[in-house]
């Protein structure tokens, strides 16, 4: 069985890509836009790497994944909330479903809802954007169903507060002060109101686990919360928690693309050195012909 497998992989990961790149560069009848070749190659290579490692993981190979403290703490936090008989508060960020941060936040909500169903704690999800509320209800209902506890799902606990950033922060602060949750999750896209929430959470004595891709808010979460998923860790969290081979494979692919980025940075530095001692006269920016609008 192994031999055929290699042929299939060979065609899939060598034949097809080379063929596609050839078509792209021949550009029959001006099918493709000119000018963003570098972006095309970059996206093509990264997608290829992801796909390669997803298939490798699916074919049974398991990869080592370093433990991330914030993810291990999620289970403990939900357990603590059950022991103390208080609730778990999940804040899915304040931006809409057109942001990848919010989508990742709702996916993590699905996993946390699964844990809450197991521990029979109660989950409270105040939402800032109505669409996110609908998506959150969808993924929580599914998580409770998968754990075989659809009876525990309480639809009124996933509700809309308001669309405004600071009114939402005021509303959630009020919920925290009066409900005194033992575990608070901040997973999604946050702006200036992150510290308002995190400081109130810490004054109520809750375990706080934050995760966001908004780089300007990570410092506030780092100072005010107990655990933080920093940038890329936040996006990888949904794959980590699902544990399925495909997802773990894609993170492995992500690491290799990161290795490629490091190599390219090294190349650019080497190139700029050669330019300086004028062994080469390559103009780096022409190589990175990037125009976002063409």
């Amino acid at each position, binding site marked *: 069985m192994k031999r055929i497998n290699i042929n299939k992989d060979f065609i899939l990961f060598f034949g097809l890509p080379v063929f596609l790149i050839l078509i792209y560069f021949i550009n029959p009848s001006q099918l493709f836009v000119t000018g963003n070749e570098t972006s095309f190659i970059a996206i093509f290579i990264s997608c290829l790497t992801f796909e390669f490692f997803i298939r490798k993981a699916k074919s049974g190979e398991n990869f080592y994944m370093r433990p991330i403290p914030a993810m291990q703490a999620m289970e403990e936090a939900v357990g603590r909330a059950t022991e103390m008989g208080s609730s778990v508060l999940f804040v899915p960020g304040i931006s809409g479903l057109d942001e990848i941060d919010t989508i990742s936040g709702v996916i993590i909500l699905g996993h946390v809802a699964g844990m809450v169903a197991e521990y029979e704690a109660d989950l409270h999800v105040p939402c800032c954007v109505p669409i996110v509320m609908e998506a959150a209800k969808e993924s929580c209902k599914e998580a409770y169903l998968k754990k075989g506890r659809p009876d525990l799902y309480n639809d009124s606990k996933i509700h809309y507060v308001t669309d405004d950033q*600071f009114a939402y922060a005021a509303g959630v602060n009020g919920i925290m002060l009066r409900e005194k949750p033992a575990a608070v999750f901040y997973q999604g896209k946050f*702006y*200036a109101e992150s510290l308002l929430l995190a400081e109130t959470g810490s*004054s109520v004595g809750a375990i706080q686990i934050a995760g966001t891709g908004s*780089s*300007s808010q990570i410092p506030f979460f780092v100072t005010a919360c107990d655990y933080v998923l920093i940038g890329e860790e936040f996006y990888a969290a949904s794959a980590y928690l699902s544990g399925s081979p495909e997802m773990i494979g894609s993170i492995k692919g992500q690491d290799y693309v990161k290795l490629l980025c490091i190599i390219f940075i090294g190349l650019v530095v080497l190139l700029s050195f050669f330019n300086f001692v004028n062994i080469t006269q390559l103009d780096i920016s022409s190589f990175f012909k990037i*125009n*976002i*609008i063409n």
Partner: protein
Amino acid sequence: MINFLIKLGSIDRKIIFLLIALSVLIPLLYPNLIELPIKVDKNTEIVFNSISELKSGDKVLLSFAYGASTKPEVHPMAIALLKHLFAKDIKVFIVSLWPESPIMANQAIKEIVDTKLFNLTEGIDYALFDYKTGGFIVIKGIAENFREVYKQDHNGTLIEDLVIMNNVYSVSDFNFVFDFSAGVPGNAEWVQYACDPKKIPLSSGCTSIMVTDAIPYVESGQLRGILAGMPGAAEYEKMVYDFLVEELNTNSNLNNDSLLTKGKAFSRMSAQSVAHLLMVIFIILGNLSYYFSRKKN
């Protein structure tokens, strides 16, 4: 002594809040209590120089992207920049990317007109355009075709009848773009969607929280310097104030009988300094008590 320090380490939040409130309130009530020298940051200098390089008759696009809650930090920059541009007889075009920005822009222009420093007529020296929803789409639209995004100015006069608008069709027809940002859309979107691809000089004044994210753009030259938060505003205000004092009698665009006033950011800096110092003292106290309490047990 030791356990006094330890007790200091666990100050109740409310006392910290009270001290912060006083440290801001007192300098505001008695502004000339503390007079501190202003040291100009290199990024502010780059902004001042790139504006000074502009020639009279040049066209500058100002993008207002902040609201009332971030006005204390960004509004003084807008006032100082408008004074600097009008003193050099530069044509100013103002677009608004946040719902509250048109109100900010009107207040800024009104404040400039009230100083009677310049004799300005709308439609010839400056033009204002209404808020358009869509964030980066508007910036992309301006980059490609200004006239497709804005059919008329904020009073409703058509583009064709505005003298200032002739041969202005896209961002490439401006000599400089300056963005007052407090979030998204802000200077990053102007870099990504307009000024980088179209190679138009761009600079920005923004709230200090946004500076750390904009620094990579400043370092790589995509942003010509940056006015960073209130200190940036105070430094730029001081440079423009000195520039105007020098130019008062020589420059034709300035009517020299009007009075020159110092900006707001300058007087608010003392409140900032006291509050910052107080915070550093809290941190030191916190660490001292943390050190001794750890030593004790």
